[in-house]
């Protein structure tokens, strides 16, 4: 099997606030292999973006990582100094953000912005080499007339083009791990299809590992090999993409899958399955399972103690006392 690139074990991130302590990342463990894509899904506020930021040690005060470990290529990132981290971020590990409008600097040309990371991380290149490399990256991500676009500012580009620039920036130092936080959420479907296709191509070319954070289960099904489902800061289910889509065990995973409208004729006026209620506040979590209030299978034991993530088959794990009996495999 291919080698492990990133291993996260029992990671916990705490925010100390006036209203009490909360743990948006609560005891998270997972692993990403070279060339593999891991999807993290969940609804807003479930801690998926906080998990990504914790891995890169970009958590800001009043937040801090309180326990656990993040091993990148066999070394603990939590033990690195600030300088060592700066060397890794943008170089061996890069991030693509959701909002291409706010994550590009409006007063620099896109050429300048791509060059910045090359200049920082690849010492000893001449200005011309840096410029050529930046233009090559723009070509790689499919920007037409790259040498002209190089001199343009972010506002002159469309949303899809900006997201391509973000990908070019992220890939410019050939990172081994790419973290993409809702990379296509702000884009239209036809542009989303272009960007996902590009990300797959670029990932294959560089054999990079990828963590893809999204709320769109369709995107997960298309891009990922392994999937984590998060709920209120915890992993509730972890498995291969087939495990999650064909043999979901956690009632939340099942609920999420059932609540998407499917393409089928005559589906009109059929009630969509919903998950009743709302995500609990992290300040006021129930005793026991965090999903109990919205779960139709909840029983006494769910209210007593929180279920642990139990191993099923292969890498498939679920945190539930009363897992869903799936209707046979596929």
């Amino acid at each position, binding site marked *: 099997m291919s080698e492990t690139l990133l291993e996260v074990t029992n990671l916990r991130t705490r925010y100390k606030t006036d209203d009490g302590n909360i743990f948006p990342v609560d005891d998270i463990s997972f692993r990403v292999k070279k060339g593999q894509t891991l999807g993290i899904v969940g609804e*807003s506020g479930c801690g998926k973006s906080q998990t990504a930021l914790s891995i890169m040690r970009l958590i800001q005060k009043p937040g801090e990582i309180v326990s656990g470990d993040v091993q990148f290529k066999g070394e603990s990132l939590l033990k690195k100094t600030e300088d060592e981290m700066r060397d890794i971020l943008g170089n061996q590990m890069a991030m693509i953000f959701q909002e291409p409008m706010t994550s590009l600097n409006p007063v620099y040309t896109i050429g300048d912005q791509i060059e910045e990371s090359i200049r920082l991380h690849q010492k000893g290149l001449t200005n011309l080499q840096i410029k050529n490399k930046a233009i090559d990256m723009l070509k790689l991500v499919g920007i037409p007339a790259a040498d002209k676009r190089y001199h343009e500012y972010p506002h002159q580009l469309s949303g899809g083009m900006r997201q391509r620039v973000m990908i070019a920036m992220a890939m410019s130092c050939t990172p081994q791990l790419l973290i993409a936080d809702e990379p296509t959420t702000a884009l239209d479907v036809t542009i989303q299809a272009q960007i996902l296709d590009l990300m797959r191509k670029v990932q294959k070319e560089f054999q990079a590992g990828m963590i893809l954070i999204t709320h769109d289960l369709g995107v997960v099904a298309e891009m990922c090999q392994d999937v984590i489902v998060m709920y209120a800061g915890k992993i509730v289910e972890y498995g291969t993409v087939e495990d999650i889509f064909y043999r979901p065990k956690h009632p939340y995973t099942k609920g999420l899958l059932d609540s998407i409208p499917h393409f089928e004729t005559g589906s009109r006026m059929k009630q969509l399955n919903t998950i009743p209620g709302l995500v609990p506040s992290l300040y006021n979590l129930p005793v026991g399972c965090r999903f109990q209030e919205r779960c139709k299978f909840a029983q006494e034991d769910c209210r007593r103690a929180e279920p642990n993530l139990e191993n099923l088959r292969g890498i498939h794990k679920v945190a539930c006392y009363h897992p869903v009996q799936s209707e046979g495999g596929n």
Partner: protein
Amino acid sequence: MSSETPLLKVENVVKHFPIHGGLFSRQVASVKAVSDISFELKRGETLGLVGESGCGKSTLGRCLIRLIEPTSGKIIFKGEDITHVDDNRMRDLRRKMQIIFQDPYASLNPRMTIGAILEEPLIIHNLYPVEKERAERVQELIKLVGLRPEHLSRYPHEFSGGQRQRVGIARALAVNPEIIICDEPVSALDVSIQAQVINLLMELQQKLGLTYIFIAHDLKVVEHVSTKVAVMYLGQIVEFAEADELYKNPLHPYTKALLSAIPIPDPKPRPERIILTGDVPSPIAPPPGCYFNPRCPMASVECTQIKPELEEKSPGHFARCIKVPATI
């Protein structure tokens, strides 16, 4: 769904936004946001308007209730041409035509309680002049959308996105409208909450006999709620049909590409997908000929020369493409 006369009839509606510039702020160009839209809608139907950002679907929705004045064309509501009626008459008509907005965070006044928000349309339209009856109506409304009467004294910030959208729906329902324009009502919500709001909208439609115009970019949601679907591209309707027919048998290459671009929540490998190249062109200077030709995988020379019309290709199924053969 029985009445024969359409509830809403739209004829050749056009909206161009002028762009001023130059020395004397003359009009130098215009954004052709909506061009030549026509359709009919019967009571109890739901028309889904789909398309990518900037295709003019929201502008069209707003033109229909004259929140934006159309440049030309006719809007006929229950047999009355409302395109040029005065403000007083329009205010009366808006009682019958309401809108639900996309952003449940921006569309509720943060300084008003939910009760006051729901009461306001009743006061404006002078519907329940007796205060006690008005209070009862507000209570009835909040229960209708699945919230509780004790929520009435709270402020919008105390609610989640899904709950706020319920308040937005209750506000639209307050005046007993006949048609509701839903402008991306669920796109700001999480999946599990989306399903709750969609179910609510459909339940209300059955209970109250409402007619919807449902504007969305999510084709799956549109398929689920609509009886008819219009696909828009650069201000034009490029395809129009009954919902089942359109999804089963898409004719226009743009509709085909849109359908094929949707990620399907099933990890099974899928047949080849149509990936469109390039972006939507600017509506200030649309390309010559068919607006879709620069991105169309089927385009040929005549597509850059002939402006296609919206033609009936098979019974009830319209498409704006010269490459699609008519079967009637």
